[in-house]
């Protein structure tokens, strides 16, 4: 049926140039039809709300009274609002702790897993939190981290100190959010890195071994550089999703924790928009989140050249 590898298609109908262009024209219509639903959805449910966000950011509106333009007032008031500044700092702290620690652990575990012949059980254990909804994860950890819960009581008993109040102490609350986020997302990064490690050609490893490379050299000089494009890709995604932290904060630390200790930007957007119906300032905060996301991603792409090793032809 299709064994011939020659490019039959270049001229399907011999001679008929006019026929060909009629087919092309019809084909173009099919193209629009095929992308149609997604393009309409994109325009209606992404682009329109996105433009709406930009518009609202420069307006004052509570949903009831008429909308008034306020220029940059929302941005000015937001950037002076200690709550937003706190949210930005918290969000950045969560990202800066969660991403490197989470990815670092994941790389180590992936390298360890790759050496095993059967690893199904481990994969299932590590991946279970990934398929569990963040709400459930946060509920479970809320019980674990109570000041009279297992973890605190065990720590208090072992070290003879007062039981740490993970969720009540403002500083520990943020760390708790990081711990839970790392716990919940590690499995995903492990399997991605494992797949990446398995894509490394065995001949490269063999060649290095013949040259006398030990386990450490193999890791630092061969596996890590060859894995670096995937680590980079994952870190970009992990960073972006850390900047969007909401579920854990909302559930684990019951509405952004003691004294807003775990208030994140998305929680701030939610709180302004749906707690106080201040759509303008809330949208301004949303635009600030977007800018922050773009800037950090740009920085990561800039740093990429230094740290990421691309091998020609390797995929």
């Amino acid at each position, binding site marked *: *049926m*299709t064994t*011939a590898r020659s490019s039959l*298609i270049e001229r399907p109908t011999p001679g008929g140039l006019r026929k060909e262009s009629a087919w092309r024209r019809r084909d173009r219509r*099919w*193209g*629009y039809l*095929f992308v149609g*639903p*997604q393009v309409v*959805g994109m325009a209606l*449910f*992404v682009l329109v*709300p*996105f433009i*709406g966000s930009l518009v609202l950011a420069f307006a004052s509106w509570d949903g009831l009274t008429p909308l008034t333009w306020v220029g940059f007032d929302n941005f000015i008031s937001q950037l002076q609002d200690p709550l937003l500044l706190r949210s930005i700092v918290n969000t950045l702290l969560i990202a800066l702790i969660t991403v490197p620690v989470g990815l670092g652990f994941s790389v180590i575990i992936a390298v*360890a897993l790759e050496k*095993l012949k059967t690893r*199904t*059980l481990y*994969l*299932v254990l590590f*991946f*279970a*939190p990934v*398929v569990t*909804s*963040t*709400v*459930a994860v946060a*509920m*479970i950890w*809320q*019980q*674990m981290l109570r000041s009279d*819960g297992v973890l605190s009581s065990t720590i208090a008993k072992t070290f003879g100190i007062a039981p740490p109040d993970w969720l009540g102490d403002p500083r520990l609350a943020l760390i708790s959010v990081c711990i839970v986020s790392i*716990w919940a997302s590690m499995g995903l*990064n492990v*399997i*991605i890195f*494992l*797949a990446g490690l398995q894509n490394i*050609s*065995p001949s490269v490893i063999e060649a290095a071994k013949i040259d006398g490379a030990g386990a450490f050299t193999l890791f630092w000089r061969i596996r890590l550089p060859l894995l670096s494009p995937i680590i980079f890709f*994952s870190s970009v*995604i992990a960073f972006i999703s850390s900047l*969007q932290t*909401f579920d854990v904060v*909302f559930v684990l630390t*019951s509405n952004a924790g003691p004294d807003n200790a775990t208030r994140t930007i*998305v929680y701030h*957007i*939610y709180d302004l*928009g*749906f707690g106080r119906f201040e759509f303008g300032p809330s949208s301004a905060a*949303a*635009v600030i*989140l*977007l800018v922050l*996301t773009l800037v950090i991603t740009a920085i990561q792409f800039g740093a990429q050249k230094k740290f990421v090793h691309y091998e020609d032809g390797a995929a």
Partner: protein
Amino acid sequence: MTTTQRPIGADAAIGARFTGDGAGPGPRIEKPARTGRAGARLRVTLIHVVLVVVGVAMVFPFVWMLLTSLKTLPQLLQDPLSFWPKPWTFDNFIDAWNAAPFARAYANSIYITVLAVAGTLITASMAGYAFARIKFRGSRVLFIVFLATQMIPKQVTLIPFYLLMSRLGWVDSHLSLIVPAMMVNPFAVFLMRQFVLSLPKELEEAAIVDGAGRWRIFWAVILPNLRPGLGALSIIVALDVWNSFLFPLVLLNSPDLFTVPLLLSSFRGQFGSINYGLVMAASAVATIPMLIAFVIGQRKIISSMAASGLGGR
């Protein structure tokens, strides 16, 4: 149809090698055979020790959830460190089930997820096919728009999206969750385009020569060959829709319409600080069925998620 003709989708390639117990493509080398036997065995043992420790850390919270849910309130308050329930009780599960419409929430979550997945599979594979294989004016620009919008966090559009839904009359209706999910998913379009590009061109060329239209080619030739990709995509989308929280939280008000995570979160406010057993029973009701489903489909689920994490490579 025939297995030999089936092209290798990214997830199939990864899946085969993944769990390590299948015959994966590419040569496997026996690593321990090279170095000293004893040293190699010691190293493998060390690796197992580390992995078991991590594994326990991953599983313990689930175990503790179950144990807590089976304890009575007096035991929880008097001796929070006791491991086994004494006495064992199922009362928390009965109370949790009666306190909130879990059956309803499961029905809601299932039907929202099924519709969202089915819609995404159709619209995204059509768009992915068009972007990969059909030449039409503006296709490049459109595709770049799709890639670019992936950079916009969904939360940025939360408020205007809510206002749009309220204008459409879809607030406190499942339509606000289903229709947008069915109609727009840039990542899914990107992934399906990658899968279509990995199919050999000869597949459709034969059909084109036979005079088949695009519509028939898509349904009869492309879709059947996309099956591994569609499987991976449906898992990714299903997990995403099932676990989503912020948008349902904002868009739904009536408890009868709640999804499973949303219903579970309502336990936080109502009973949160006192009745740990009840809250953990509710968490167990919300998670155990999912965990069982995951264990059954683990191979496919894990390889699909790996493929998506690699951007469909």
